[in-house]
């Protein structure tokens, strides 16, 4: 099956994840085209960190990501809706913790 974003000219789409600063998660920021992972990393650096947005970059071929189907949303996510007891709302978060 031909994957969405797959090209036939040797270029592929890569998803870019950037860590803004130490202690934070890598966050998805967008995508670039590249012919190999090294080029994707350089393109990500050139496109997404021009204004000091990050200290670390991950690149992942878009074709290697298996995404959930929006049509399955009911089956996947509805069952959690009435289970509020799963939320850890009974804890006090210390003031010092900024990024929880």
């Amino acid at each position, binding site marked *: 099956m031909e994957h969405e974003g797959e090209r036939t000219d040797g*270029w592929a789409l890569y998803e870019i994840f950037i860590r803004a600063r130490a202690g934070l998660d890598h966050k998805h920021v967008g995508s*670039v*085209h590249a012919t*190999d992972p*090294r080029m994707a990393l*350089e*393109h990500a650096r*050139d*496109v997404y960190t*021009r204004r000091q947005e990050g200290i670390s970059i991950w690149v992942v071929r878009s074709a290697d990501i298996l995404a959930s189907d929006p049509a399955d949303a009911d089956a996947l996510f509805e069952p959690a809706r009435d289970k509020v007891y799963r939320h850890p709302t009974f804890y006090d978060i210390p003031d010092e913790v900024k990024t929880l």
Partner: protein
Amino acid sequence: MASAAPDAADAAPRVPYVLRLADASLVLAQRLGEWIGHAPALEEDLGLANTALDLMGQGRLLLAYAGELEGQGRDEDALAFLREEHAFLNPTLVEQPNGDFAHTMVRQFLFDAWQHELYAGLTSSSDERLAAIAAKALKETRYHLSYSSGWIIRLGDGTEESHARMQGALDALWPYTSELVETDELDRKMIAAGVAPPMEPIAEAWSARIDAVLRDATLARPAAAPYRWYGKQGRHSEHLGYLLADMQHLPRTHPGASW
């Protein structure tokens, strides 16, 4: 002797040496800027522009310093926009036209490999200002070299078409490399003063880097060319004049214009 502010007798001979470094970065920045809006992919457009801006920044710092050393009241703008062609002291390589992407990348790689070694040496210059500029620029250069090496290998070891274009670009641009690693009287004077680093280890490291990358790229190193270019002495190829006309047109037409 290390000194932040060389006295007048020391300063004068440094002016053309600093201009050589400044013009190398400035002219290549101008060339790379010509790609903006024309690169083969949006990502490369930004990549080339980023490199151009790094080089432009180096050029500005170096031109400002050259102006101070000269002490004639010329600032970075005066030196960039109001000098004639023969007063530019960049190596001939950087003024060569962009050509196709192969030419641009080969030119970039040959330059980056040279600048990387030279600036590493300049970080221990007896001239503290130059050492500081080199230390800042070296981080940029390390990235440029990685980026251009990647393209040399990718396209050299790519398709039959890309390999042929890369070899063609390498053969065309190789004759301009000798002046990068050969010394003339000014270079030797600067080396003796500890302002410039000794050239032999730089030439060796440059050559070894070129060989290693060309091997991975399955490209053949061209034979040394007998003809010598001396852009760094102000004797340029026919291309620099057009480049300067483009670059200097606005400030010469509207002196003192501002945003």
